[in-house]
């Protein structure tokens, strides 16, 4: 109260004409916004607890509810925005670092939206995906430099380990702990059904999910949580996480309250202890150290699994990628600054890193300039929001994309950005059993499969329009892209012409 008071950000608008007091909203709100007042004979709400996750809105059988942004705001100020001032108040109240979840919501350039895709007209026929085969299969991994022949002249067909994707999209790292068992089950089942991969993140692999190992990327991050021999063996590939787009340069912190039961067992740390992933890997202070870890992991898995090195997109990403390409890694994953997170300091999330579009363009160009593009595959993430983003990323030079925010949206996430509270009403970013069960993996996996199937169809339509019937002919095909409203420098970095050129 008084100086510490912050007017609630949202208002719960309940139509009394429609409300039948079924109390579904009350039962479904983990934040305890709704309650039934016997005295008033009506439902009431405590808006100060509302995070605008829309669970109640979605389940209200008479559409009696809506959540709106409060119009009780401070005096308009183009410099001191309402949000900025509120953050000041919060920090003055608490003295703490502000925490946020999911991706950077700030109004920063989205280059995907400034890039347009080509289509065939007259000189070259578009291809109709309903009539002609349209291929989206991708192999990720190092490709041999030289063909060799056996003494009898036959081509030697030995390949370094590859990941085969039915389409150029994988589900990116989200740890068991940051998301729920059922969210992992949904991802694992969907990846298996789709013929792509999901990623354990740094939380280990629950024993129930070893059966999906052929479609699992197991992650080794700075905390090394959940890493053991069987874990490394279980996955189809191993990802060394050096950084994350939402929080480059810092580690992770899963509070002890979430380290319960299976989460603690899977991470191999005691119940209730905080899981703190250090900012650096303390055995990697330079690129040659990374090479050692890459080869340690290869040795441990008999060179049968590709090694992915995941880094956040930062200023000198091209040089970093070049170093990784020479480290023995098979795949480089780059995470742009709009990537999501289960929790990150707000200032870091909103101010550190660079857009994935620019990072991708410059990395792809650098690797080609150095003639080592074939040494590695390139996977990009950090707010790939649609099939069009995927097509643009591939045309800029990516082999595949990582998606996570889109995946959790498919699972029911409404981007309320309060994952850090652990009270996810959609059963995704929570470990509370009563909330976890809200995500039925039958539905979750089906929705993920639907989303990816839809994207795949759209990718095929876009490819067909360009007269391309195989995704590999799109990769790095920047001639298929044009910029709009971009300056010379941006076009130069992206390696594309302006629309009209």
């Amino acid at each position, binding site marked *: 109260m008084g100086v510490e008071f912050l007017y609630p950000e949202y208002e719960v608008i309940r139509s009394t004409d429609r409300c*039948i007091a079924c109390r579904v909203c009350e*039962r479904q709100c983990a934040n305890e916004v709704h309650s039934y007042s016997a005295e008033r004979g009506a439902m009431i709400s405590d808006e100060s607890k509302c995070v605008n996750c829309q669970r109640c809105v979605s389940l209200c059988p008479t559409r009696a509810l809506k959540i709106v942004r409060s119009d009780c705001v401070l005096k308009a100020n183009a410099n001191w925005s309402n949000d900025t001032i509120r953050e000041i108040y919060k920090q003055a109240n608490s003295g703490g670092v502000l925490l946020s979840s999911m991706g950077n919501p700030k109004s920063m350039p989205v280059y995907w939206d400034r890039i347009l895709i080509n289509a065939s007209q007259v000189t070259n026929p578009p291809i109709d995906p309903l009539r002609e085969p349209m291929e989206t299969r991708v192999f990720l991994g190092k490709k041999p430099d030289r063909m060799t022949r056996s003494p009898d002249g036959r081509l030697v067909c030995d390949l370094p380990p590859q990941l085969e994707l039915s389409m150029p999209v994988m589900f990116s790292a989200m740890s068991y702990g940051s998301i729920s068992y059922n969210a992992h089950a949904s991802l694992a089942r969907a990846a298996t059904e789709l013929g792509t991969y999901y990623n354990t993140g740094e939380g280990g692999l629950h024993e129930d999910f070893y059966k999906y190992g052929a479609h699992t990327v197991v992650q080794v991050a700075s905390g090394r949580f959940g890493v053991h021999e069987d874990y490394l063996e279980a996955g189809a590939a191993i990802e060394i996480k050096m950084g994350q787009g939402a929080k480059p340069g810092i580690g992770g912190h899963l509070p002890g309250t979430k380290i319960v039961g299976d989460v603690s067992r899977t991470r191999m740390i005691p119940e209730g202890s905080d899981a703190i992933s250090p900012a650096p890997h303390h055995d990697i202070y330079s690129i040659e150290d990374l090479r050692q870890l890459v080869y340690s992991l290869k040795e441990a898995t008999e060179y049968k699994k590709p090694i992915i090195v995941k880094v956040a997109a930062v200023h000198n990403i091209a040089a970093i990628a070049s170093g990784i390409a020479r480290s023995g890694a098979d795949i480089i994953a780059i995470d742009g600054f709009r990537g999501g997170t289960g929790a990150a300091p707000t200032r870091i999330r909103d101010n550190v890193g660079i857009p994935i579009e620019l990072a991708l363009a410059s990395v792809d160009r650098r690797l080609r300039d150095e003639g080592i593009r074939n040494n590695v595959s390139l996977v990009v993430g950090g707010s790939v929001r649609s099939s069009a983003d995927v097509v643009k990323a591939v045309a800029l030079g990516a082999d595949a994309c990582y998606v996570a925010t889109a995946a959790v949206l498919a699972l029911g996430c409404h981007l309320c950005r309060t994952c850090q509270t652990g009270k996810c009403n959609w059963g995704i970013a929570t470990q509370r059993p*009563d909330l976890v069960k*809200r995500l*039925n993996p*039958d*539905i979750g996996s089906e929705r993920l499969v639907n989303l990816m199937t839809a994207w795949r169809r759209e990718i095929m339509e876009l490819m067909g329009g360009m007269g391309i019937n195989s995704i590999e002919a799109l990769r790095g095909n920047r001639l298929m892209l044009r910029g709009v409203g971009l300056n010379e420098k941006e076009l130069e970095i992206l390696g594309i012409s302006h629309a009209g050129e």
Partner: protein
Amino acid sequence: MKRVYVNEEWCLGCRLCEYNCAFANSGLSDMVLALKDKPVFPRIHVEGDEKITYAVSCRHCEDPVCVKSCIAGALSKENGVIKADPDRCVGCLTCVLVCPYGALAPGENGVMLKCELCLENSCGEPACVKGCPNRAIVYEERGETA
């Protein structure tokens, strides 16, 4: 035969099924009109505690003890579906006394209401199934016992 099954692993105890059921069987086209400020008499009931919840409705037993026990001939089995005739039911609750699933409860005037799989209302498929937000209630064919 297709029956309504509940998977308690996914039941959230939200009770939407109860309201959807009561609405579907109200014969009205507007849920607010049907249920607002009125006692609700669904034919499916959520049971359980804070740990486990599940919705129970008539199992449509192959060998229904309620039908055999009805003193008024109000319960009958048609094409596998057990139906209650409200004109015949005298509200003695013998069916409640014999149903081992606790699936039956009387309606507003003491006459039995029971799940008839929404076959005769406008719902098409059971309203509880259609409205379940977590697919905890399903309508499907499972192995018949011999």
